[in-house]
């Protein structure tokens, strides 16, 4: 049966009744999944993803911390690993040894070190120099010296500096804000990766997060953007990243955290979203996948757990929507990313 010319593909609505196993959070399965992630040196997936290892560590560490099981990972070896990844020349962090430093992994490294209260083990001044050096005259940021520009990097830069408490007197915040706002779209109030780029939930998270960190949420058209964001929820309860796309646990996080920062969490159905996220658990191996029935991975596992935390699931520590880190760490650092009230 092919009727595609008249009927567009379904919205990926997961209409099946949730399986009994996936109505409850498989807490210990997930702990086990994260704990074992990468324990086998010769795990193929693990080996082939070494180019983003630093972020992988951040995802695992944060997910376990949210679940109150941080002690299951070896603090010292992680700190040692992170230290080894700092580039002695540029000051930025590489995803792992043998690779080049990049803003993406620099933020992950700083996030991990904040979690372990170990910022003093690295050269923070060098990190600041690295970040500052990547800002461009128009306020945007390169991801590394090779010149890719993207609003993701604007977020990484201000998040890194916020965590290091070095945002003032380092970068030109006004210009940085101006660049991010130049990526705001008139039609939907959302943001893309660069000026003129189509709105995308992942980049909206970066830009809303950026404005939250720079205390400039008033620049958002909350009603317009909020509507676009709440329209991401599909009948399955899951959220997609753009109109007419499939739902995905990671987009669920990006939309959910943006709505939370904007004080509009009540514009979607939390109950249905929770059902969707839980349906993406792998009840055999633990871990979350992008969609019901797919292969789990560490990235979606953090965003699954993080999403549930934002929705107030019991047994999980509160997560900060802007920095995607446990709230207690943000409090400890005395950082206050802006959040709009309802």
């Amino acid at each position: 049966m092919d009727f595609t010319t008249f009927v567009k593909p379904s919205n990926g609505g997961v209409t099946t009744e949730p399986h009994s196993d996936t109505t409850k959070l498989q807490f210990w399965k997930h702990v086990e999944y994260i704990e074992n992630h990468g324990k086998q040196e010769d795990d193929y997936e693990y080996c082939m993803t070494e180019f983003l290892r630093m972020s992988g560590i951040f995802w695992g560490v944060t997910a376990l911390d949210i679940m109150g099981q941080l002690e299951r990972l070896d603090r010292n070896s992680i700190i040692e690993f992170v230290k080894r990844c700092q580039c002695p020349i540029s000051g930025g962090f590489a995803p792992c040894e043998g690779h080049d430093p990049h803003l993406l992994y620099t933020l992950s490294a700083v996030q991990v070190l904040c979690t372990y209260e170990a910022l003093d083990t690295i050269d923070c001044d060098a990190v600041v120099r690295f970040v500052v050096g990547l800002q461009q005259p128009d306020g945007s940021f390169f991801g590394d010296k090779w010149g890719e520009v993207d609003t993701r990097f604007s977020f990484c830069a201000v998040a890194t500096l916020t965590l290091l408490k070095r945002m003032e007197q380092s970068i030109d915040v006004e210009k940085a804000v101006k660049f991010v706002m130049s990526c705001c779209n008139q039609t939907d109030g959302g943001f893309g990766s660069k000026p003129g780029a189509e709105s995308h939930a992942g980049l909206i998270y970066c830009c809303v997060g950026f404005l939250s960190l720079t205390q400039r949420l008033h620049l958002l058209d909350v009603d317009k953007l909020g509507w676009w964001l709440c329209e991401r929820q599909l009948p399955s309860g899951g959220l997609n990243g753009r109109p007419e796309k499939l739902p995905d646990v990671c987009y669920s996080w990006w939309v959910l955290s943006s709505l939370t920062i904007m004080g509009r969490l009540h514009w979607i159905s939390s109950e249905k979203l929770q059902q969707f996220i839980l349906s993406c658990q792998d009840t055999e191996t633990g871990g979350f996948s992008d969609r019901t029935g797919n292969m789990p991975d560490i990235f979606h596992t953090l965003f699954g757990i993080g999403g549930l935390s934002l929705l107030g699931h019991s047994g999980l520590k509160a997560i900060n929507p802007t920095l995607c880190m446990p709230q207690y760490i943000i409090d400890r650092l005395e950082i206050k990313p802006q959040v709009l009230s309802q």
Partner: protein
Amino acid sequence: MSDDLPEEFDLIVVGTGFTESCIAAAASRIGKTVLHIDANEYYGDAWSSFNLEAFNCLLEQPNFTLRNGSYIWHGPESKEENEEMEIVSWTRETLLEKSRRFSLDLSPRVAYSDGELVKLLIKSNICRYAEFRAVDHVCILSNDELVSVPCSRSDVFNTKMLTMVEKRMLMKFLTACNDYKEEDELSFRGRTFLEYLQAQRVTDKIGTCVMQAIAMCDANTSFEVGMQRTNRFLGSLGRYGNTPFLFPMYGSGELPQCFCRLCAVFGGVYCLKRSLDGITQAEQSNELLVSSAGKTLRAKQVVCAPAQLPASLARHYGELKPHISRGLFIAASPLGNEELNKGGGGVILLRLLAEEGAREACLLQLAHYSGTCPEGLYIFHLTTPAISEDPSADLAAFTAQLFQANAPQILYSAYFTLTAQTIPKTSTAMPICCTAAPTYELDYDAAIANARDIFDKLYGEAEEFLPRAPDPEEIVVEGEDPSALREHSLPEDLRAQLQQMDIAE
């Protein structure tokens, strides 16, 4: 014909029309020895295509299949006669000069993209011999104008024929039909499809689109049949082109030959201009003795097109009666506006109704992209079930609708009747199987069903009807375990790397 051919066959097939060719191919494909003959000097019998000159000859010499033939030239005879006209147009001379560029079908057909024919061609891998053009437009007549029926979401979006609300209605109606399941709409069981349509509160225009072009119904068509037809239409959408239909490139006469080619590939023997002269039961065996061209051949079974039966047997099948009335027109301009004939036009299908829906006809308009006529010319095929011995009178009600307003510039018109026996069933007394003459249908469903029936009768249902024929490159070497992982199954570059590494270690 070489007369050193074998004298014994599992099956002798007489007539190279679509149905007979299907059977010949199917038998040959399962390993039967097949002789396929035809009394004519061309392939295809009543399913054949002809160039213009040959077509005229055929009309002049009636045979068992075709009678009441006539043709008229409408344009000027030659250029001299045409001198006073400013634009040099087509003349009888120029048309005949290009005679070979025509491929004029006796039985023009289209195929549903997901219909029986296409499925059979794909399943059997005969599709590699066939080439199709997606029908460009399915039309209805609205106020004497040809209007394209929207066949896709984007068609509905772009069409100017429907109002905003009608667009929604059509989409909704079709989506409902598409989602229809056996257990739905029980209240319409035993009622007509028209009643169902009316209950959906659609406008007249949408009603016309659905009844005439999509469901291809009349007022009496039952709900179940209408729904089935609608879904046949919908199910064939979005596969190849913008409409659910395909037209065989170079004419419908190509199709029987595709089956003949498969038959020949599997050892079938072909002889044209060879008729079936007589047939008798062999003594002391179940074999049949077939006399043809002065020779006696032995066959376990014989399949024959009704029109090629020897006179002695033909009488068992009753009289040949008019079955289908055909009109064929060559014109220098197409039907329909420019939008419908973009870039010179393609293939347009239009179902016509007359006498308040009691009678119907099918129009196929072919432009040169179909490979059936020279550039700048258009062929109109009109087909209707015969009600008399006068095909032109039978079609008058339809030609009047088509050629009244905005008449195209017709250069040539021809009419003929295709015949069929009054008793098409194979009589049990007969030692052979007889196929059915072409019936009035859009696709080949009935013809394929007929072929399949006869095949099953001959070989039992255990034998598959036209299983997939292997491609030449699909040669399987025995003893190889395709699942075993060997290092040499790794990509070239990885292997090189590994070797390098082993040396390093």
